[in-house]
């Protein structure tokens, strides 16, 4: 009883005192919504990675070529009964193509280590043929270690390795940089792939070089300031035994494939020691363009299927494409023919490819592309975010494929997507996040849009 009275007295005492309300920051709501988006994007990315399986550590693609590159492998809807040829290898070290070539006795070039000013650069797993030069680059050093793991959120300094292949007219390459999320990682890692033009390697080798010459830079990119070069390695020489570099086998195909109104020509098949390549060209009615094949593959006479790993293809021009498949049949002479197969094609149209997005409009809104309805579910500019603050959520119909959204002045963008369905059987909306300054209105263009035309085909390619 006495305690109760005392408690009531204390209650009354405290209640009559002045209490200062805690002010809630205005940016809290934006931070919460951003967090929800990030978690959902991670969930979708996990599904995406589970399906691709091979490329789980890649975070950044450094494009130093002028051609456009597709690096995401298509999702394969193959039944498990169809054997897809694969050789297990850590992506930083190679792919099924380099792995089988090594097993068949194709030599790697000697690895090279250079040390300067406390930095160490190692070039390893180097394979060179007429089609491509691939290598792994590892950078070590106290200053590098301090910057790991890399966040890749645009708010913190990001170290990277940059190479130049000095023997060739175009010194650039396609690079895949590893973003370690583990603080035990001590090295910065890059997988570099240099593609060659026709006869480029033959011309190079005709000069009887004893080395491949490269230069390298360790660069630190910091938000809101110019990149800083931490260390330059000017003259790197990789010893070369010209007699061991094998040339590609090229087969002229010149076969037309007609799918609906689209005429696509398989121009040639190139079989190199570490990879096979199909070159195609397209001829479509004006206002339309050929985006890609759906699930392209090569199949041998035994029914084994060869698919891309990593770099799926490149577009040397608007009407030509190169599609890559691994491993290679270079060292296997037993096949009379191969089949180039696909499940359908993606055709894009210029009309409707560009549209406007206003930040003051109400959403959802509908727009139409190639006769299909796209719902713009949400558009938000998250001022609280340093990285990719413009977020556009699109509900895309199954018939349409869009790789990304292009906006003038954007510095980078990402696209979270999955082929899976949510618990209600509804497809997840695609979330596009773009690093661009705030504007009341944006001119947006679909990047690599394609309308799916189903049409499973297998085209024979004679090898003998």
């Amino acid at each position: 009883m006495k305690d109760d009275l005392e408690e009531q007295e204390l209650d009354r005492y405290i209640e009559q005192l002045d209490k200062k309300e805690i002010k809630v920051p205005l940016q809290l709501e934006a931070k919460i919504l951003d967090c929800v988006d990030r978690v959902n994007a991670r969930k979708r990315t996990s599904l995406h990675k589970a399906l691709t399986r091979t490329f789980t550590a890649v975070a950044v693609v450094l494009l130093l070529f002028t051609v456009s590159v597709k690096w995401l492998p298509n999702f394969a809807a193959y039944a498990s009964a169809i054997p897809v040829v694969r050789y297990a290898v850590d992506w930083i070290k190679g792919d099924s193509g380099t792995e089988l070539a090594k097993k068949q006795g194709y030599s790697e070039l000697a690895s090279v280590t250079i040390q300067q000013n406390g930095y160490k650069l190692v070039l390893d797993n180097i394979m060179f043929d007429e089609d491509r030069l691939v290598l792994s680059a590892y950078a070590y050093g106290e200053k590098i270690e301090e910057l790991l793991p890399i966040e890749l959120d645009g708010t913190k300094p990001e170290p990277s390795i940059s190479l130049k292949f000095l023997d060739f007219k175009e010194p650039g390459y396609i690079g895949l940089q590893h973003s370690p999320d583990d603080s035990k990682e001590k090295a910065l890692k890059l997988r570099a792939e240099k593609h060659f033009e026709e006869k480029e390697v033959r011309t190079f080798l005709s000069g009887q070089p004893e080395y491949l010459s490269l230069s390298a830079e360790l660069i630190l990119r910091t938000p809101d300031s110019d990149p800083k070069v931490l260390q330059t390695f000017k003259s790197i020489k990789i010893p070369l035994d010209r007699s061991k570099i094998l040339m590609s086998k090229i087969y002229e195909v010149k076969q037309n494939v007609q799918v609906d109104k689209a005429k696509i020509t398989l121009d040639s098949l190139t079989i190199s020691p570490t990879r096979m390549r199909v070159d195609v060209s397209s001829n479509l009615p004006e206002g339309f363009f050929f985006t890609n094949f759906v699930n392209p593959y090569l199949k041998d006479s035994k029914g084994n299927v060869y698919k891309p790993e990593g770099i799926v293809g490149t577009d040397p021009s608007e009407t030509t494409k190169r599609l890559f498949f691994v491993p290679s049949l270079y060292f296997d002479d037993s096949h009379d023919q191969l089949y180039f197969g696909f499940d359908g094609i993606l055709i894009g149209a210029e009309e409707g490819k560009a549209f406007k997005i206003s930040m003051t409009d109400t959403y959802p809104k509908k727009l139409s592309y190639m006769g299909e309805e796209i719902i713009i579910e949400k558009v938000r500019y998250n001022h609280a975010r340093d990285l990719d603050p413009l977020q556009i959520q699109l509900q895309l119909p199954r018939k349409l494929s869009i790789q990304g959204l292009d906006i003038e002045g954007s510095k980078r963008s990402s696209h979270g997507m999955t082929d899976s369905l949510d618990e209600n059987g509804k497809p997840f909306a695609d979330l596009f996040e773009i690093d661009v300054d705030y504007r009341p209105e944006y001119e947006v263009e679909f990047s690599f849009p394609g309308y799916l035309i189903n049409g499973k085909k297998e085209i024979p390619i004679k090898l003998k």
Partner: protein
Amino acid sequence: MDELLVKKAVKGDKDSFSEVVLQVKDEAYRLAYCYLHNEEDSMDAVCDAVEKALLNIKTLREPNFFKTWFIRIVINECKIQLRKREKVISLADSLYKDENYPTYKREEKLDLEKLLSFMDPLDRLLIYMKYYAGYTLEEMSITLDLPTGTVKSKLYRNLKEMKVKLEAKEGAYEG
């Protein structure tokens, strides 16, 4: 709290989840701030709690329990934040133990808010929950996962001490 909205959130509807979280965000932040007394840390704790809640929403059995469940996650995240900071707040006691400390400085220092700022985070939270946020003892017990008796005894023991200190300050004014 809209039960239907929570049910949709549990089924994976991201927008419904965002909506229910935004309904409780102010209370969550204030409790976090009460615990951590730092704006950035408090926002981080709330956001970390949002992430954990979103990943574990399927474990929520009773939709009408969402707020309690979420606030519990927020408080756990506050504890994690505090461990990261490794700070010890114990100034007020030292002021009163020093008999030579000038009275006028005690007067300047102490009011309810200042006193709260010197308290142990959990003790401060108990007072905030009851007298600022209007929780009953039972609600506090469920949210903090402490027996009601423990909540009550800690609360009133602290209140008694606070009253003594505050009245000592008032006495100094009048004196």
